[in-house]
Structure formats: structure tokens, C-alpha cells
């Protein structure tokens, strides 16, 4: 069956697809496995670029342009900017498990997801829905951009207007978050939570992340959930393991 399809597909298209798919996947895998946040960001650019090519391949030229300009141009640059600004450009040890049991859990989830997919694939029928509900995509005067523009300003007019609110939030949010906090932040002002491990002196203890187990009796909590510290380290702290400093774990 695949031979039949392959025969029907034009070589150029197939080649383009194959190459871009490879780029996309390689980039994606790169993001996940690269130890260096900067590398990850660059890998992300690669994926975005591959996706943009696939957009072009599917006659979504405008989106391809936006993808490159907005995503690769703005978003990834923002990422890089933050990485550089924070100086969190050291490596994360991929081998160290973030949390006991997290990776097995992720593995289980992935396996379950795949099993679900397989079941779905075996049991389900695959069909796509009604055609051209919001307007045809091809063969319009003015091409892709005009068609998209019409859709956005007619059918999707209100969603388009509503995105204004999103941008307002983004601006206000950036302002709020960038505001300098007042110079009073002794963490001891925080009332200790149940484990009382916050009451530990706030400074003068180097190498925080290695000691994380000692503050949490049993590594678990009374409510039966795994301990989930959200820890962010300082770039200036001398960490022997070279751990990345901005970390979150669930």
C-alpha cells in the first residue's frame, strides 16, 4: 500500500517532506535531550524552521512567514535573551533524575499514551469532517493571504478582537513582573509550612540542591503526594555538579 502511495506522490514533495520531517524531529529530540539551554533554543529554531517548510508545502505561506518571523524571530530570541540575562547557561545533568519516580512515571504515561493510541488505531475508524466550513483554502483570488485575511476578519472577527485582551495582559504582566521588589525579602518572614524546612537559615549554605533530601523527612508528605520543590538557584552559587540553576520539578 505504501508503495502505491509513494508512486503517486511526486518525488520533490516527498523529498521535501522527508527532509523537513527529519529536521523537525531532530530538532525536537534535540530540545529534549540537550543539556545546554542555549542548544535547546537553537534546536527549537530548527524545529520551527522545519515546521515552516511544512507549512509552505501545504500552501500556508502566510503562516510559514509568521512562523519564521514571530516564532523564530521573536519568541526564540526572547528565550535566548532570558537565558543570557539570567546567566543560566550552564549544563543540566540529564542523568540525575529530577525527582524520585518522576521518570518512571513519565515512562508509564508515555506507554499508556501509546497503548491508547494503538487501541484507538485498532478499534477506531479514521475520517475527517465536513469540508470548507469556514471557506475554501485554495483557488481564491488573492491566494492564501487574502483567504486567511477574509476568514480572520469575518468568521473569526471576534476571536481576533479578543486577542487584544491577551496582549493587554502580556504587557501588564510584563510590567508587574519586571517591577523591582522592595528590598525586604527575608524568607524567614514566611510562616513555616508543615515540614518547617523553610526555617533553615536563608543564606550561608552553599550547594543547595544536593541537600534537598535532608530537609524532607521521608521524601514524601503527609498528604500522600511526592515532595515537589520548586527551586531556583542563583547563578553565583558555586555548584559542584554544574546543575542548571532554574529548575522546576513536579
Amino acid at each position: 500500500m505504501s508503495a502505491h502511495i509513494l508512486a503517486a506522490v511526486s518525488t520533490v514533495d516527498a523529498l521535501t517532506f522527508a527532509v523537513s520531517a527529519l529536521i523537525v524531529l531532530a530538532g525536537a529530540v534535540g530540545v529534549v535531550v540537550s543539556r545546554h539551554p542555549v542548544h535547546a533554543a537553537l534546536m527549537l529554531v530548527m524545529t520551527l524552521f522545519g515546521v515552516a517548510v511544512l507549512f509552505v508545502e501545504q500552501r500556508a505561506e502566510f503562516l510559514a512567514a509568521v512562523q519564521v518571523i514571530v516564532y523564530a524571530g521573536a519568541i526564540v530570541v526572547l528565550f535566548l535573551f532570558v537565558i543570557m540575562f539570567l546567566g543560566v547557561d550552564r549544563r543540566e545533568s540529564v542523568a540525575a533524575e529530577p525527582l524520585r519516580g518522576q521518570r518512571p512515571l513519565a515512562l508509564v504515561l508515555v506507554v499508556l499514551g501509546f497503548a491508547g493510541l494503538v487501541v484507538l488505531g485498532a478499534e477506531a475508524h479514521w475520517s475527517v469532517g465536513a469540508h470548507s466550513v469556514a471557506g475554501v483554502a485554495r483557488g481564491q483570488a488573492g491566494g492564501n493571504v487574502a483567504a486567511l485575511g477574509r476568514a480572520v476578519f469575518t468568521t473569526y472577527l471576534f476571536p481576533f478582537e479578543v486577542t487584544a485582551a491577551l496582549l493587554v495582559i502580556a504587557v501588564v504582566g510584563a510590567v508587574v513582573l519586571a517591577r523591582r521588589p522592595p528590598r525586604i525579602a527575608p524568607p524567614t518572614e514566611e510562616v513555616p509550612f508543615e515540614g518547617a524546612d523553610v526555617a533553615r537559615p536563608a543564606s550561608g549554605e552553599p550547594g543547595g540542591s544536593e541537600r534537598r533530601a535532608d530537609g524532607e523527612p521521608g521524601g514524601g508528605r503527609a498528604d500522600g503526594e511526592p515532595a515537589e520543590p520548586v527551586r531556583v538557584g542563583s547563578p553565583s552559587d558555586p555548584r559542584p555538579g554544574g546543575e542548571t540553576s532554574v529548575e522546576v520539578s513536579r
Partner: protein
Amino acid sequence: MTVPGAWYLGLSVVLFAIGALGVLVRRNVLVMFMCVELMLNAANLAFVTFSRMLDDIGGQALVFFVLVVAAAEVVVGLGIVVAIFRRRQDATADDFHVLKG
């Protein structure tokens, strides 16, 4: 004839899975965040593919909105990271995990 949509969809699913896996296994906030972007891109790819398969411009319009949302999310998300990070420097505390659970 062009490459069948199912191939694109397969690629999109794999991309989505890689992104989701990344969010689950990585602990660097920025990398996790990039993995979320991968997932959004997978969705965008699916939208565009469906748009082509259905000959419907709607899918592409949706991608447009997802892009806007992604941009707003990135601004706020990175803002939070920066805000937290700066306080760390101020407070020179290296290890509060105030929130557990």
C-alpha cells in the same frame, strides 16, 4: 499529488509526544517551556494539515490565534522566570522550596 495528510499527522503526533515527554522529564524551566512550544507547533502542524485535507481556511486561522497565544504566554512565562530569578539574587537564598506537594 502531494504527500498524504496522514503522514503530516503522524509527524505532528510524534512531535507532540516528544514535546510532552520533554515537559515531563526535564526540570529546567526554560527547556520545559520550549517543549511546550514544541507541543503547540505540533498542534499548528495538525491544524494546517487538516486545513489542507478539508480545503478549509479555518484551520489556518486557528493557527494564527495559537501563535498569538503562544507569544503572550512566552512573555508572561519568561517574565515570571525573570522575576523569581532576580529575587533569588537579592535574597541570596539558594534553597527555599517553600511549596511542596
